[in-house]
């Protein structure tokens, strides 16, 4: 055995190969736990079911108050949403969140920092962010593969709620782009929060605040049109926050709530947020590592 380590030099190809291997390994790792998937996916639709009944009751009250002779079901509008739109909205938000939610990412990073596992990325010539990203992409792909069938079933059963039918070509393209960006935004946002673990060893409360904000301001809980515009214009504030791209935006694009130039403007702002969190996470990583290595670990 002769030692040639010194003469080896990294190339783009070898870098790409590292990520490809990492990707494949992550997929294998994920397939170990295929049992959770089926149950987990179906559970995702449970809250939607309660939403369907809740809104049915609400629309029912509105329509009986407005028009006396309505007995065949609710047909009023709330903030521009008919009953069918409302249900379709929740179904589409489930899709958005299937892309943007990153279970365990933040706490995972914080744990790695606290337990010292993060050392691995200081010792080996490999980047932590790249590893985590590959891992997430792999996990998501496996998830979509496993969840495709239950998703298709639910959407088939709920087809009637999409009153205006499915969107056409251009809108569909914007919708898909917004989903991909939702994934990137979700990843880099949570990665950034996780890196705060370099400063505070415990980020559970921070994660909780983030989840709460995400729940209320992303459109996960209700369409953003329902947010009050006075006395404080929360609706306008939310427009300036990144959260709405995690759930509301793709759904609104799909349902035709956003039109024309606003579609591309929305995509551009979403992209801007992704870049913002990429840059922020890089800065945090370098400062965090410096602090970590200065402090001990």
């Amino acid at each position: 055995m002769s030692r040639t380590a010194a003469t080896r030099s990294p190339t783009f190809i070898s870098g790409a190969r590292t990520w490809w291997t990492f990707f494949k390994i992550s997929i294998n790792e994920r397939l170990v736990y295929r049992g959770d998937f089926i149950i987990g996916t179906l559970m995702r639709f449970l809250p939607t079911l309660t939403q369907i009944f809740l809104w049915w009751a609400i629309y029912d009250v509105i329509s009986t108050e407005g028009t006396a002779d309505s007995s065949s079901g609710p047909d009023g509008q709330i903030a521009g949403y008919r009953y069918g739109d409302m249900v379709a909205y929740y179904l589409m938000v489930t899709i958005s969140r299937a892309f943007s939610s990153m279970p365990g990412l933040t706490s995972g990073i914080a744990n790695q920092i606290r337990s010292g596992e993060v050392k691995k990325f200081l010792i080996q010539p490999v980047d932590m962010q790249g590893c985590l990203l590959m891992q997430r992409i792999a996990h998501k792909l496996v998830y979509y593969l496993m969840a495709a069938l239950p998703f298709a079933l639910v959407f088939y059963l709920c087809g009637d709620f999409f009153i205006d039918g499915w969107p056409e070509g251009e809108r569909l393209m914007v919708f898909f782009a917004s989903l991909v960006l939702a994934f990137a935004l979700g990843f880099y946002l949570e990665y950034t929060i996780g890196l705060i673990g370099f400063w505070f060893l415990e980020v559970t409360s921070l994660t909780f605040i983030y989840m709460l904000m995400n729940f209320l301001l992303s459109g996960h809980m209700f369409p953003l049109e329902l947010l009050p515009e006075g006395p404080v214009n929360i609706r306008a504030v939310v427009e300036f926050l990144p959260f709405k791209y995690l759930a509301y935006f793709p759904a609104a694009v799909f349902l035709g709530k956003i039109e024309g130039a606003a579609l591309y403007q929305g995509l551009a702002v979403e992209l801007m947020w992704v870049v913002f969190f990429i840059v922020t996470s890089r800065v945090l990583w370098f400062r965090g590592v410096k602090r970590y290595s200065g402090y001990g670990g």
Partner: protein
Amino acid sequence: MPIIEIKNLTKSYRVYQKKEGLGASVKGLFKREHKNVHAVKDISLEVEEGEFVAFLGPNGAGKTTTLKLLSGVINPDSGTCQVMGYTPWERKNEYRRRFSLVMGQKNQLWWDLPALESFRLNQHIYGVPKAEFDATRHELCDMLDVTRLLNQPVRELSLGERMKMELIAALLHKPDVLFLDEPTIGLDVIAQHKIQEFLKSYQQEQNNTILLTSHYMKDIEALCKRVVIIANGEIYHDGSLEQIVDKFSGDKIVTLQLHESVDQDALKDLPNVIEVTPPKVKFRVQREKVGAVLSGILNSHAVDDIVVEDPPLEEVISNAFSAAEAEGKSQ
């Protein structure tokens, strides 16, 4: 030129001091008292290529801190260090491709996957060509006798098997310098022995430089010619194992086997008797008095057999540690 050159390296940690009790915890929310702990104080050390050096010391002596400094995980407060011409804490990729750190208590392999997959990943991370990777892997797996376990998920391996896999993962890119932090911790005697054998022959074959910390004296006896004793963050002794025995133990252990005709209790009143198990008597004698004491006994008693040996290394080292601690306190 030495492959590792450490000069006046100093590192201290700031540690939050928490007092006992709820009151103190509440107080800690507002005002925290910190204490500086000097983990490594002004250490200088040179290691030549191909050396196998053991770091010995009580818990918290600064052994692991030194290894962390050398592998670039942490930055020092002051001092310099060069490993193969690199400053470790600059964390250059060229440097990171040329060493490995194995920690006995930390897992680097993918828990749910066969070790082979983790090996493949390392192959690409370190950019090892396929042919070279296969050859090295075969050789290492043969040496450690784990080829049949390559396709089993790591979580199903025993601790000893996992440690062997960890070692292979760390050696696939043929690092020039290897840092081992307690590689045999928690292993049974057979597995320990196996890993010692492996490290020994691997190091002889590759002639790479290995720094090892361990609590098991057997590891050190088996592997290292040079021993560095660290206590309280300072190098207390740097030399061969024999020198340490000479320096820290003035005694020899003598075991006599008495002849049947002799009264078996005759020698039980000797000073410093360790144990009497007729017909054997074991006792401790100062090194320079061994001759005199023995000839005295031989003149008056019939003795079948005599064994004179050094005290167990554990005891010697523990003497050395206490001496180091005492010196640290008196300063």
